[in-house]
């Protein structure tokens, strides 16, 4: 048996990544196209980027989206972390089945159902629709993703550290902040980022739960895309892609470094204990 990569393995990786990246690459390239026709190349130009920054509607929508994403990701991270602790540390309790069901179901629930059901809830309780209803909706579906990410970290780490702290008289509350949270922090941060981008990205749930005056960026982009492909949208997409790429690469380097350090500290502490 030959070890390592065969030509078949290499070509499937190359083809796979080509398939994943070429469409995004083409989108970026054509945002610098001088022609209004997206599919005809007419020379390099940054005209569309200037046009973009004069488009007040798009800028307003971007601002709404960022606020919703920041707020909902932050609340979702707290709720999702609590949920993760519940599911990994509390063993069996009454209603656990229902709880874990409510955590996993939203991960795969079609967005049209989540969106419609939340809208009908907001109407039934007479909540004014707008910024806050989108934020509430986003908290609800993103907290489940956070919970899954944090859970995967909680189940792998050495629980004897927590037990040692409790044995030495630490309160559970303090144990969480001194021992548990620092160890799971990378997962909590990536949970927050996941929640942030999911919120940034969401079209369907936001469209259902929004009201007058709260239009998010995906909603704005969607309504323009329906009218046809324009270089301006390509430019907007390119900026979004650039931001996300920089943030993700930066964050993954940071968490990588942190994780290495944490693991070393964890091992040291375990060795001393």
């Amino acid at each position, binding site marked *: 048996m030959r070890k390592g990569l065969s030509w078949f393995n290499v070509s499937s990786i190359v083809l*796979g990544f080509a398939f994943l990246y070429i469409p995004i690459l083409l989108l970026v390239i054509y945002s610098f196209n001088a022609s209004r026709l997206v599919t005809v190349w007419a020379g390099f130009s940054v005209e569309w980027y200037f046009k973009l920054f004069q488009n007040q509607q798009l800028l307003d929508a971007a601002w709404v989206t960022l606020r919703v994403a920041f707020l909902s990701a932050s609340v979702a991270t707290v709720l999702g972390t609590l*949920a993760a602790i519940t599911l990994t540390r509390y063993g069996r309790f009454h209603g656990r089945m229902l*709880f874990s069901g409510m955590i996993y*179901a939203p991960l795969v629930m079609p967005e049209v159902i989540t969106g419609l059901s939340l809208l009908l809830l907001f109407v039934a309780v007479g909540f004014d629709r707008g910024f806050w209803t989108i934020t509430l909706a986003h908290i609800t579906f993103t907290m489940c993703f956070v919970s899954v990410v944090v859970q995967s970290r909680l189940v792998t780490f050495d629980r004897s550290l927590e037990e040692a702290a409790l044995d030495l008289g630490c309160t*559970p509350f303090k144990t969480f902040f001194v021992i548990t949270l620092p160890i799971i922090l990378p997962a909590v941060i990536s949970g927050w980022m996941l929640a942030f981008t999911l919120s940034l990205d969401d079209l369907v749930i936001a469209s259902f739960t929004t009201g007058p005056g709260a239009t998010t960026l995906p909603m704005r982009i969607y309504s323009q895309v329906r009218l046809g492909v324009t270089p301006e949208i390509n430019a907007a997409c390119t900026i979004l892609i650039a931001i996300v790429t920089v943030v993700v690469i930066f964050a993954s380097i940071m968490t990588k470094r942190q994780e290495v350090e944490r693991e070393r500290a964890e091992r040291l502490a375990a060795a001393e204990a």
Partner: protein
Amino acid sequence: MARNARGRWLVVAIPYFWLLALFLAPFLIVFKISLSQDAIAQPPYFPTFDLSEGWDVFREAFGELSFENYGYVLSWDNEFLEAYGSSLWIAGISTLLLLMAGYPIAYAMARAPKSIRPTLLMLVILPFWTSFLIRVYAWIGILSPEGLLNQLLIALGIISPDAPLQILATDWAVYIGIVYSYLPFMILPLYSALEKMDDTLLEAAADLGCTPIAAFWKITWPLSLPGVFAGCLLCFIPAVGEFVIPDLLGGSDTLMIGKVLWTEFSVNRSWTVSSAVAVLLLLVLVVPIVFYQNVQAREVEAR
């Protein structure tokens, strides 16, 4: 210890009640509205339950609930049943294509040298972080009749300029869109199943005279089945209710239930019929969702 118990209770209660109020309760409301009838009012359905008008009015409102909307949705005269069928079909084909595309990639990633695996993993996840809408949008420019794919094929002389491939606005565009957007969801569970596999098993099989292909089907494939199930369900379930992809890439005759629900809600403005459509869609998906939860729970407990 009393304080601990209270703190513990709070940790459970806060997310629990949040989900009860904003995830479970809405479904009950959807179910109730699916039994109501459309009205030109605010909110646009009746009956509405209002205890302030007394118990009798409340009870009367109960009597007005009916399964009429379900009859409407389930009648062969309307396109709903067809839409459920074609959604399941499109999601099924897409999942199969996803598995066929994702398995070799995940397999190769799991065999790659350990040092480059994290980089490969990040490269798979990275497109997922960029907007879903953007990734679907990118394909419009590629697949349209005067799009980049046709330009390339014409330049290569494979097709004639007079007869460009008509892919956009067909079911094929929807398959491509779903495979493209969901591929990371298929690769990641497959990769984590394949990565855990013990290589010595394959060596033992080879020593005992097994050909690589037979060894794959006898060892690798069965061991990767949890990943296959997780990946397929993770793609299939949301794909059934997909709205954006069929709306932007599909044609007017691409019938998918997510799009039908959206149209029923925002164009026909029938909240009651769209609720009935949602309840039935949920019923269709209950089996795969429960199955998915079991796969997930087993995964967590196994660690």
